[in-house]
């Protein structure tokens, strides 16, 4: 065990898999000598050499196309998109090419590519650096999408993503990079790619969230506990596929559900969760399912970020509304 920040856990996962599998390759813009603009790949080029860890020309479509090509040659590429807002540049290579390769080849060709990328708001970045675009990739057939909310999951999920033979989009929360520390096991371990995690047990209300909003939700659960309300918090971890078993089980236990996402209301992860529960467990519910999300604008100008991002206060208000419904 070692205490690691969220980003150190990511670096450690990369180091572990570079060591354990010589077919893994880490590349992207500034990931080599510079060790990434956030230092997620710090020291990896020095340790594993320029053959395994390298800088590419500045082109996201190129980076993903290169990954598919390398996978066809038996490699296990781990490309980085420097900020997830730049993923639009690569959407054909991701959604039009990479995600379709196995299907297109009658299930004969796997392309085990793990796309790492930071996303999420709250750090006052310029335009296109903080957008929550996970629903866009989560609605592409053939792609897995996972996002950890803590250092332990960060390392374990990334290792699982790299070892998995499907293409995986691995989303790292920018705000959590350095704001969170926890004990993380040394060496290789896995966190299953398609399992939600009940991070806090409760009986009166289920809050389902992912990434940084899990921590906001936990704050609310702790606060409400002091008033005798027992809140269960479920961390989705995987956005595609959604682990409907875990969320339905929790909904059937607490009979009240709130779904939280940082993304805009129109972006579909929370909607997908709500529809799964509606279809599978609506008769067990005592109140309408609630949603907390950002408003339907484009990501806000930096100075107004805090007024826009859903926070613990918004979650608490909605949680009370659902708890009080009868």
């Amino acid at each position: 065990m070692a205490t690691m920040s969220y980003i150190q856990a990511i670096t450690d996962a990369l180091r572990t898999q570079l060591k354990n599998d010589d077919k893994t390759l880490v590349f992207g813009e500034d990931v080599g000598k510079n060790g990434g603009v956030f230092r997620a790949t710090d020291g990896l080029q020095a340790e594993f050499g320029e053959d395994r860890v390298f800088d590419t020309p500045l082109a996201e479509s190129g980076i993903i196309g290169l990954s598919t090509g390398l996978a066809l040659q038996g490699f296990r590429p781990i490309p980085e998109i420097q900020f997830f807002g730049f993923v639009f540049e690569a959407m054909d290579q991701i959604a039009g090419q990479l995600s379709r390769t196995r299907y297109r080849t009658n299930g004969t060709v796997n392309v085990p590519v793990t796309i790492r990328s930071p996303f999420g708001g709250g750090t006052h970045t310029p335009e296109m650096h903080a957008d929550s675009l996970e629903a866009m990739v989560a609605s592409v057939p053939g792609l897995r999408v996972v996002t950890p909310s803590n250092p332990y999951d960060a390392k374990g999920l990334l290792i699982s993503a790299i070892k998995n033979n499907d293409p995986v989009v691995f989303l790292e929360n920018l705000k959590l990079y350095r704001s969170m520390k926890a004990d993380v096991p040394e060496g290789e371990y896995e966190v299953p790619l398609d399992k939600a995690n009940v991070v806090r047990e409760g009986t009166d209300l289920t809050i389902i969230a992912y990434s940084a909003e899990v921590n906001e939700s936990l704050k609310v659960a702790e606060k409400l506990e002091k008033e005798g309300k027992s809140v269960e918090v479920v961390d989705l971890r995987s956005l595609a596929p959604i682990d409907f078993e875990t969320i339905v089980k929790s909904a059937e236990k607490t009979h009240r559900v709130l779904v939280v996402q940082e993304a805009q209301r129109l972006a579909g992860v929370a909607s997908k969760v709500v529809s799964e529960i509606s279809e599978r467990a609506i008769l067990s519910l005592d109140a309408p399912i609630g949603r907390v999300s950002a408003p339907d604008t484009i990501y806000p100008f930096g100075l107004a970020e805090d007024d826009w991002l859903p926070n613990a206060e918004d979650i608490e208000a909605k949680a009370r509304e659902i708890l009080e419904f009868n």
Partner: protein
Amino acid sequence: MSEVKFVDFVAKKNDLQDQAKPLQVVNGKGEIVNQEVFDKYSDEDLVKFMKLMVWERTLHQRSNALTRQGRLGFYAPTEGQEASEMGSQLAFKPSDFMLPAYRDIPQLIQHGLPIWKAFLWSRGHVLGNDYTDENVQALSPQIIIGAQYIETAGVALGIKKNKTEDTVAFTYTGDGGTSQGDFYEGINFAGAFQVPAVFFIQNNGYAISVPRRVQTAAVTLAQKGMAAGIPYVQVDGMDFLAVYETAKAAREYAAAGNGPVLIETLTFRFGPHTNAGDDPKRYRTPEEEQPWFDNDPLIRYRKLLTDKGLWSEDIENAYVDEVKEEIKDAVKKADEAPKQKISEFLENVFEVPTPEIAEQIKAFKAKEAK
């Protein structure tokens, strides 16, 4: 059988070495290397050019300090690129349409954007992108590397279809930007439609930490114009007169209906990529940096103008004080900008709010009234 080669790719690869030398008027020592071009300019012109570079250097120094004090937000340092930026922008008219990237704020200000609005853009305030009062002919600074290049082809095609006289579109990207698909699409579309556009590549040696050589095997970035069928040239980007003279010729050529031009300026970013934690020591050596610092465009012209009796430390200091005052006023004005409201952002999403958005506007207005 003798070794007859129908095609010799080894020889062809060697042929790729572009022999072109960057255009120059005044060299790194402040010596005139092209007297004919130099003589086109009066003493007043030279002082004006010098002042533009000092203006940009001062804006940089103040912006740097303001970012550190938390009074500005996002800032991409421009120190070292004064000749490349001021020399190019000066060739254009306010009616020309500019498509800048994040490091082109000084040109955008010279093109008509008030400094206080540039500061609001940096802080993350929507008013920084509202160009209506000043009628600035520009798109707000591009964050997505390369996107502005293809949009420039579109603006220029619009200018052509509208038959707008004596007007061009011009844009900037960096060395890294030339690797994006949008870069190639932009110059290719511009060539295919023969539009009035001038494309600048400010090759400052690095894309964040990635050196120019990692971007491409091409010997120059300018030569990428060849495949698009458009004229291209590489210029000493530390030489104001060389950049200005080239940009003027390009504008004239494009405005006359001859089609687009691609210009690469060779320059250097003296400081970090942005003020958000980049440390050049991680990827550049002092040995590599020093010759570029010595090649400072201000040193070159300061020497030349001082020798001619046109410039002195006193003149420079007095002018710097003037610019600092201008910047101080801009900060004050930026501070007075109203607090942004989410309800107003919601109103800006569509021309007529959809029912869902109308509902959200109502909710946020209630929140904001508290």
